[in-house]
């Protein structure tokens, strides 16, 4: 990462971890090389599965003209039955809309097992949150999100919008769903 700090995501870049740098470089290259929206979505799924360790992923599109958001795409979970507002809460949703990442790191219970970890990442374009990436469950072997994951969230937040939405970033989603208030 080039920036010195990342307040919205609460971590400083781990410049001393060359493996993390390689991971970020591969994610950046994959997004930048996306041929079209479908390929960009494939890339996003691959990045989350391979680098973050989750196969339950959703993407919600924000429609600022109606102050609602709709399910844009999902993988491994039926987001039509998923209540994003309840999962995030009003405060959490407002934070994400402001451009902050909302992460529940997961915590060990008395038996040593990890409680559910999940993350909500604002997908930003020209300073506005235009979508929310929801990462809803980690694979069993991935115990929790860590600091290097926060750097990847930051990269996705800053660089995924263009390949995912391109010039249509400000238009309404094609399928108007029963959006919830933003």
């Amino acid at each position, binding site marked *: 990462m080039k920036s010195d700090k990342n307040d919205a995501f609460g971590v400083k870049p781990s410049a001393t971890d060359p493996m993390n740098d*390689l991971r970020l470089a*591969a994610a950046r290259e*994959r997004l930048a090389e996306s041929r079209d929206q479908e390929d960009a979505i494939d*890339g996003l799924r691959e990045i989350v599965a391979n*680098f*973050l360790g989750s196969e339950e992923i959703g993407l919600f599109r924000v429609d600022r003209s109606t102050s609602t958001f709709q399910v844009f795409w999902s993988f491994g979970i039926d987001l039509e039955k998923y209540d994003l507002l309840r999962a995030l809460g009003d405060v959490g949703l407002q934070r994400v809309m402001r451009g902050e990442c909302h992460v529940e790191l997961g915590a060990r219970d008395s038996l040593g097992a990890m409680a559910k970890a999940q993350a909500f990442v604002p997908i930003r374009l020209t300073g506005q949150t235009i979508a929310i990436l929801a990462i809803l469950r980690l*694979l069993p*072997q991935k115990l929790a999100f860590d600091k290097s994951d926060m750097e990847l969230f930051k990269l996705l937040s800053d660089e995924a919008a263009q390949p995912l939405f391109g010039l249509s970033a400000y238009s309404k989603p094609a399928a108007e769903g029963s959006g919830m208030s933003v």
Partner: protein
Amino acid sequence: MSKKILVVDDSKTALMMEREILEKRTTYQCVTASDGQEAVEKAQQERPDLILMDVVMPRMNGFEACKMMRQQSSTREIPIVLVTTRGEESYMEAGFQSGCNDYITKPVNGAELVALLQSYLGE
């Protein structure tokens, strides 16, 4: 002469990452394939020193490719490391039954991957 690794994955992202790790953190040469069928063909052509292969892939999955390579004299002895998101014991057991030598789960830890490869190939 540097050792050669055949990296097999249908995910461009995983291929990019594994290739980056091999090229920047090791002296190994890297060739790639994007599904099991291509892997079987590339293994015969390239005669790699080790195969690092995803399991869930189109056309031919990693288990099937592993079995096929174990049946062919030219690829029978090549170490195969399977890579997958599935870490359950039963799934790993199926991997070993297909003939793999080792098994690692995603997300791949780069340092652990390099150490594992070095344990087979040396530095």
